[in-house]
């Protein structure tokens, strides 16, 4: 009996979500009185995972798994779960995590709960809290199968150090051939992506036009943040579609979300509710965003943002 965690990596390096799922796995293992086994694919140095509580790390090195492929990765996770006699499998709820986990669930005949926001509230029955209704509520879900799969929502459990002296072991699974083949990957390089970002600077129609995004980019740059926008902004072609945040766009679960010239329509808020701290800058004191925000400035973005950039630069330099 063990808790198997899939610690995802890019170019050999663990993502922050990998450390979060290991931290989560450690917590579940404590609750169940079992141990944590982390599965890695083509990761360079796995010792980092011991710091977050992985007692055993199984490493798979295989060139055919260099880039993510849902079906092949799912076969590796399933086989590892069987080999380790895992009763709980923990993955992240990233774009790739959500692609892979349902396939694993079928092959293990396991109940799967995605977008889980907290450690199990009970292990018998096994109950987890998940996001529901586009972040407007939570559902407490009981998983009743022998094997349980948990997809942890980003930034919901957090990264917790819990050093153990772990060991690693190589693992050579049979890899399922995938029916889909990657032909081309296009990435915006040199920028923080919304999914990875701890801070997101987002702007809406209040910015009046694409020519005014210079100051938004500069603010993001100062903060090491990703840039985002409201839906009309991407619909108007002022910003790329990939920056559109909200119910029909990307979800954001950052530590800090700064909304500039965004009204705070319910569909926009649905995408950012999971962010920890929200700041709004808007000329209209009645804008609904002020009800959802933690901090607010009633003011004109064209005056406030340049001042904010200047002050933040000074703050960072001090």
């Amino acid at each position, binding site marked *: 009996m063990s808790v198997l965690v899939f610690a995802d990596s890019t170019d050999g390096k663990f993502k922050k979500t990998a450390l979060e799922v290991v931290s989560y796995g450690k917590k579940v293992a404590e609750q169940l009185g079992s141990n944590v086994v982390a599965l890695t694919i083509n990761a360079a140095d796995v010792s980092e995972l011991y710091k977050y509580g992985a007692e055993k790390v199984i490493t798979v090195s295989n060139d055919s798994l260099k880039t993510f492929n*849902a*079906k092949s990765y799912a076969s590796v996770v399933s086989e590892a779960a069987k080999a380790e006699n895992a009763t709980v499998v923990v993955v992240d*709820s*990233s*774009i*790739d995590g*959500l*692609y892979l*986990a*349902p*396939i694993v*669930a079928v092959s293990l005949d396991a*109940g*799967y709960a*995605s*977008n889980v926001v907290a450690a199990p509230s009970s292990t018998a029955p096994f109950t987890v*809290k998940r996001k*529901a*209704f*586009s972040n*407007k*509520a*939570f*559902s*407490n*879900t*009981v998983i*009743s*199968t022998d094997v349980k799969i948990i997809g942890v929502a980003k930034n919901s459990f957090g990264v917790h150090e819990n050093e153990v002296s772990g060991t690693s072991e190589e693992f050579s699974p049979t890899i399922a051939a995938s*029916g*889909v*083949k*990657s*032909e081309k*990957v*296009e990435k915006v390089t040199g*920028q923080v*992506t919304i*999914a990875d970002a701890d801070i997101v600077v987002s702007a809406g129609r209040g910015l009046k036009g694409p020519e005014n995004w210079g100051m938004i980019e500069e603010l993001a740059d100062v*903060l090491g943040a990703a840039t985002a926008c409201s839906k009309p902004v991407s619909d108007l072609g002022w910003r790329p579609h*990939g920056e559109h945040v909200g*119910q029909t766009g990307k979800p954001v679960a950052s530590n800090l979300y700064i909304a500039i010239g965004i009204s705070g329509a*319910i*569909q926009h808020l*649905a995408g950012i*509710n999971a962010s*920890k*701290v929200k*700041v709004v800058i808007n000329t209209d004191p009645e804008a609904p965003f*002020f009800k959802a925000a*933690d*901090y*607010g*400035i*009633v*003011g004109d973005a064209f*005056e406030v943002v340049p*001042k904010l950039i200047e002050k*933040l630069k000074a*703050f960072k330099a001090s």
Partner: protein
Amino acid sequence: MKILVCISHVPDTTSKINFTDNDTKFDTNGVQFVINPYDEFSLTRAMWFKEKQGATVTVVNVGNATAEPTLRKALAIGADDAIRVNTEPTDGFLVAKELAAVVKNGGYDLVLAGRESIDYNGGMVPGMLASLTDFNFVNGCVGLEVDGENVSATREIDGGSETLSSSLPIVIAGQKGIVEESDLRIPNMRGIMMARKKPLQVVEATSTDANTTIQSFEKPAPKGAVKLVDADNIDELINLLHNEAKVI
């Protein structure tokens, strides 16, 4: 090409979310139900295939009779026929199993669904359905072409997109981008009239096995009031973000 589009019946995006029966049931009082927005993008792409390349489009819902107006709306948009699998859709795995039975019986080449439903947000049905039927699968699809047996699908990835090639049969979980929002259709009078006459078949569920059950719902704890900072006092905002919220 035989296309099946999976349609989830969900509360409209602006619905107030409340619960009844000791927070165990969603309160449908005064709530309008619609085609799940992600499914609507996929349905629209299916209509494009039908009109431009020739295809039949069947829509399917796993749910009780209250979902029928939503299926009729899909028919009014242009789907040829509809199937409702008569059971309470309490769990993603259960829904996927019922859909798999429909797929196996119907001999479909292309199954279109949405990335997730906006009520339970599981994001699991399309992937499970693909595995249960042994179809290929692309999740989070923002572009789709089918040429004979060959499929080219683009999916969203963190910070970009990935284009994948595959062959039919395939399950595609779509989202905005598979068609643009401006392409979405509002059913016209003629469509609505015709939809009344189109076949809506009700089939019984094959099992009642669920892997998960929802014990209760809860709403986020009410948030404290916003702290307003004067526009002339940006230092105060930085101070709050640094010392109080500890996010910079």
